[in-house]
């Protein structure tokens, strides 16, 4: 299904407004911020996964030439022990403060314990090395099962988690919740085919190329200015205010260009440390840049853990589904297990369901969002089990999914009813795609074998708050001021929506992302919300601008306002066809007719129905080595309406490739004592250009009924199906079911050996 509405700007592919700065090296990212008299910070981090701090001796560091300030957790203000809404997610400031710098105990390797500001990075590093910490190393638990074992260490002192409404008796349970609808026991009793398996996944990282950074000034009037690359300047402001115990109005956050985030640049890490070091330095600016091992070891990856799913089928219908999802949250509670539970059965219409979710505290870095957080994990389990059912019952994998597909009116596993969604249309587009209909030569003759896999995936489309200001220039262009940081072309996709309303070219809008003092509150660039929600704010601002200009046209022509209409980019009089002005013409008359015209659009949107992505993957595997190459890949997705199709395709391709890396090689490889031993790009093994084929895209457009242009979120769904699609392709090629990710060559070899004896 394709949207039929005709647009002039939407659906075209203009060059993005920030493109020139980014291809010439002029764009200023966080690490490029350089202020007069700036100091350079560096952080001392725990070398242990779990260890109590007996004492810290900073005297040698303080005595070093070039060192200006040294801090420990004693310099952190005491923060409130309560959950606070961050728009996207929530935060406990006491935990956050302890996370930013460990008060009494390091809960993961890389947990900050002290920091230094000095006249050069090298001096700061040397000074950090001179700080002596007396550690009492404690037993660590780095997996869900270890942390739930009877002899597990207590990781978060004093924490008591909620276990189905009761206080948990296990120390490392962050929470345990359940959704249950229908009659699950009867559902399985009535089923003629039941398949159940557990799928394990390793912790993985978003892998953005730009390390975290923060440059801060905390001046003598207790005003904090911060420059940082973040997905949401306002969310940073809220976090900083809670951690530094300052009013939000005393904090100004300037978002720089951002070198990738994928959810990982919503939380803050070094930013409060830079601010406190600045205060201790008498208000000098302090810049802290993470290095790559710090990014891996001490920012917010997505959890590892396991997902166990049982499905019951009768007459080609899934009638019962039971899921147990256990995620490692890291050193503090708060993994995305809630969202995982809401996604696990979302592609299907199942009458009887039960979903258990466990958030488990472990001695690993505190997890953060990563592109459709939690949904990839559960898709790995359910989409592989669906594939097994199809194999066992000899059913077509797309037709079976269509026969059981969720649609408008289907009850999700967590209760609510789906509004208009494009699951069926997406599956049909996959079924009809060139890729699905192309034959695959399973034995290409070089000793390798090939296989094809398919999987579906769902992710929400968060709404939330966005603000946009517009002002008209007398040359007919429009300044667009927004608070959404632009990670992948959203200046363009937002400007295009305003341009569509105003009847001008996308190039005639000049979008600027500004600091928290200069625009209304705007939630993060995340949750697949920016083109949807900030685009909606731009739409509203543009409508308001038209209202203002309509009034101005009436003034100019001296006719009543309701006589003026705006159509096809022109203001005209209903009664006098001679009276007509283009947008540009009226803009040129503003100065002599009352002065500038500007407008504002602010929204706080409901979530949209969400998006579905179906991926088809062909692999070629060397059965002697387990080496796996993706040789053809197609991503099909319902995007509602593609505002800028190139960047929609880019999201689909990029998400697919992150998922491919997750499926095949990426993982936090942990040593027995809880150390991540592969904290470099070299050994973390993200895909390179040579590891991939072209990523074909099929855009499906089932308009979102609550957005003026039908936009749905695009960024997150494409990372959901790849892990399962690859697992299914491996099975198609080799007849082995790999139930642990990454499905790397070593695991493939082991499984083949087991199969062949």
């Amino acid at each position, binding site marked *: 299904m394709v949207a039929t509405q005709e647009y002039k700007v939407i659906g075209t592919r203009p060059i*993005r407004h920030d493109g020139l700065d980014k291809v010439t090296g*002029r764009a200023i990212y966080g690490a490029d911020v350089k202020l007069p008299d700036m100091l350079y910070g560096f952080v001392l981090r725990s070398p242990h996964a779990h260890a109590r701090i007996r004492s810290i001796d900073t005297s040698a560091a303080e005595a070093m030439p070039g060192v200006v300030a040294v801090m420990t957790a004693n310099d952190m203000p005491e923060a409130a022990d309560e959950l606070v809404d961050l728009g996207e997610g929530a935060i406990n400031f006491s935990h956050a403060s302890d996370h930013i710098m460990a008060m009494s105990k390091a809960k993961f390797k890389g947990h900050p314990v002290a920091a230094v500001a000095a006249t050069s990075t090298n001096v700061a590093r040397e000074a950090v090395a001179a700080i002596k910490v007396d550690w009492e190393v404690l037993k660590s638990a780095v997996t869900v099962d270890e942390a739930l074992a009877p002899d597990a260490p207590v990781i978060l002192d004093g924490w008591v988690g909620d276990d189905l409404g009761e206080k948990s008796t296990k120390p490392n349970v962050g929470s345990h919740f359940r959704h249950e609808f229908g009659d699950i026991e009867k559902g399985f009793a009535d089923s003629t085919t039941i398949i159940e398996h557990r799928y394990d996944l390793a912790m993985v990282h978003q892998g953005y190329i730009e390390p975290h950074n923060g440059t801060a000034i905390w001046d003598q009037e207790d005003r904090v200015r911060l420059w940082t690359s973040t997905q949401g300047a306002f969310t940073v402001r809220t976090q900083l205010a809670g951690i530094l115990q300052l009013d939000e109005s005393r904090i100004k956050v300037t978002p720089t260009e951002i*070198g990738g985030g994928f959810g990982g640049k919503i939380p803050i890490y070094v930013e409060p440390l830079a601010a406190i070091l600045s205060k201790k330095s008498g208000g000098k600016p302090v810049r802290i840049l993470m290095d790559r091992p710090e990014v891996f070891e001490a920012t917010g990856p997505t959890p590892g853990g396991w997902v166990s799913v049982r499905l019951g089928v009768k007459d080609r219908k899934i009638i019962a589904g039971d899921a147990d999802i256990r995620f490692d949250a890291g050193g503090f509670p708060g993994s995305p297990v809630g969202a995982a539970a809401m996604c696990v059965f979302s592609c299907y219409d199942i009458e009887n369901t039960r979903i258990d979710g466990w958030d488990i505290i472990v001695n690993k870095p505190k997890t953060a969002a990563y592109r459709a957080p939690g949904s990839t994990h559960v898709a790995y389990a359910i989409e592989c089990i669906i594939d097994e059912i199809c194999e066992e019952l000899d059913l077509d994998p797309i037709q079976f999914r269509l026969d059981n597909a969720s649609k408008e009116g289907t009850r999700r596993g967590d209760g609510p009813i789906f509004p208009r969604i494009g699951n069926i249309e997406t599956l049909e587009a996959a079924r009809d795609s060139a890729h699905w209909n192309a034959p695959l030569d399973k034995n290409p003759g070089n000793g390798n074998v090939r296989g094809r896999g398919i999987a579906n995936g769902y992710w929400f489309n968060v709404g939330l708050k966005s603000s946009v200001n517009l002002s008209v220039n007398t040359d007919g262009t429009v300044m667009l001021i927004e608070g959404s940081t632009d990670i992948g072309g959203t200046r363009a996709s937002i400007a295009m929506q305003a341009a569509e309303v105003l009847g001008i070219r996308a190039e005639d809008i000049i979008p600027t992302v500004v600091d928290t003092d200069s625009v209304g509150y705007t939630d993060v660039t995340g949750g697949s919300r920016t083109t949807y929600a900030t685009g909606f704010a731009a739409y509203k601002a543009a409508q308001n601008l038209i209202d203002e200009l309509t009034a101005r046209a009436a003034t100019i022509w001296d006719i009543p306002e309701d006589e003026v209409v705006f159509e096809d980019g022109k203001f005209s009089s209903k009664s006098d066809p001679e009276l007509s002005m283009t947008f540009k013409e009226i803009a040129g008359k503003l100065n002599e007719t009352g002065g500038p015209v500007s407008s504002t659009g602010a929204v706080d949107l409901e979530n949209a129905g969400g998006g579905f992505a179906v991926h088809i993957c062909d692999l070629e595997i060397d059965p002697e080595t387990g080496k796996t190459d993706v040789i053809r890949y197609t991503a099909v997705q319902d995007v509602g309406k593609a505002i800028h199709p190139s960047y929609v395709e*880019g999201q689909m391709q990029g998400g697919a490739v992150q998922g491919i890396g997750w499926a095949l090689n990426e993982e936090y490889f942990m040593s027995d004592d809880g150390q991540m031993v592969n904290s470099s*790009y070299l050994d973390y093994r993200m895909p390179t250009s040579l590891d991939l084929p072209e990523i074909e895209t099929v855009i499906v457009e089932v308009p979102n009924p609550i957005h003026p242009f039908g936009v749905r979120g695009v960024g997150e769904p494409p990372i959901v199906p790849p892990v399962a699609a690859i697992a299914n392709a491996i099975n198609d090629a080799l007849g082995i079911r790999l139930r642990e990710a990454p499905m790397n060559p070593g695991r493939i070899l082991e499984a083949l050996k087991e199969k062949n004896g």
Partner: protein
Amino acid sequence: MVDKVHVKTTINGQEYEFLVEPYMSLLETLRDVLNLTGTKEGCNDGNCGACTVEMNGRIVDSCCVLGAEVNGGTINTIEGMATAEGLHPLQQAFLEEAALQCGICTPGFLISAKSLLEREPDADEHRIRYWLAGNLCRCTGYDKIIKAVQKTQATA
């Protein structure tokens, strides 16, 4: 303490003369001493290519070169890629093909791709992917980057 080293070099066609700590990388030198911040740091250990520059006619990871090493040499960075006449065709193709999302890896990719096309204007897709394997991109899945290079070849 060690003494700073005196370096004379040509960067983007301009003569530069400066002092630098002998242990400072070329990447730090470009960014912190010379304020040429278009060259980016992603890993600082030669595995992401975000800091790629052309040094004496070959692409290198500037994090794995000392600033002192470029004395008497020739460096080309992203800041020198566009001229008064306009953008380099690769820069234009990256814009038209949407070959960047966050843009942090873009300078490195452009420098690498330029070096490839100067040496092998007819490189096929596999060769392009091989040549660019030292540059990581986490946003695009590489598809549009490869297409932008191919488009540049086609319009050359």
